């Protein structure tokens, strides 16, 4: 890729990632959410990998990093759902908002997102989904770039 692209790609990637985080954290009150924000963060990673290449990219995730974040995303979602099941009677019951008045006050306080809106666990779900989506999409692109590199090596 050209010098100009290499100069501009990393700053754009960083700004894209910040916008993705903003989209994730505003998912309960503005358009967007976990999936869209995660895809925006992954687009920053994809841009970086496309411009710099798989071996030289400044944004390249290790296997452990991908594995840990993917697991944290999935487990966090399930744990929040189970908290709702045991405290409120339904899987993914919004224990932070507690519309049915069945959850003890201390659990409601723990899972209440510190924001002006009374969103409960929805922002936390967005955060976990965002983590999972950004790592998942980045892993797909890293794998595709790696496969391409392997094929080129086979041809050579």
């Amino acid at each position, binding site marked *: 890729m050209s*010098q100009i692209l*290499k*100069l501009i790609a*990393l*700053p754009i990637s*960083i*700004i894209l*990632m*910040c*916008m993705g*985080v*903003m989209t*994730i*954290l*505003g998912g309960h*009150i*503005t358009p967007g959410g976990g999936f869209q924000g995660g895809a925006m*963060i992954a687009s920053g990673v994809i841009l970086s990998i496309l411009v*710099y290449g798989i*071996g*030289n*990219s*400044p*944004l*390249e*995730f*290790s296997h452990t*990093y991908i594995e840990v*974040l993917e697991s944290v995303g999935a487990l966090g979602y399930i744990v929040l759902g189970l908290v709702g099941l045991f405290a409120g009677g339904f899987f993914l019951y919004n224990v932070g908002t507690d519309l049915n008045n069945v959850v003890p006050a201390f659990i409601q306080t723990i899972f209440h*997102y*510190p*924001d*002006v*809106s009374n969103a409960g666990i929805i*922002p936390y779900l967005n*955060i976990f989904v*965002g*983590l999972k989506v950004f790592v998942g999409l980045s892993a797909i692109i890293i794998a595709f770039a790696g496969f391409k590199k392997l094929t080129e090596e086979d041809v050579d």
Partner: protein
Amino acid sequence: MISYGPIIFGLIFGLILGTQIKTNYIKDTKFTRSSYVIITIVAILMASLGEFPFYTRLPLSSALVSAFVGIMLSKFIFARSN
């Protein structure tokens, strides 16, 4: 009243993301400290949208600013070496 949710979780998200930015492998281009100053100015311009959901209470979007601060902090603290 400041909402602490976007600030806390934006910082955590930024810290997670910034650990993987390693500029040592880049060929033909070098990112010096002045490059990060430019990126900071651009991030502040992007954040001047305002804080959601009202967009008027604070001049800067707290989620974007805290994510940027988190990315820069962890990039310079954790991602210095290979």
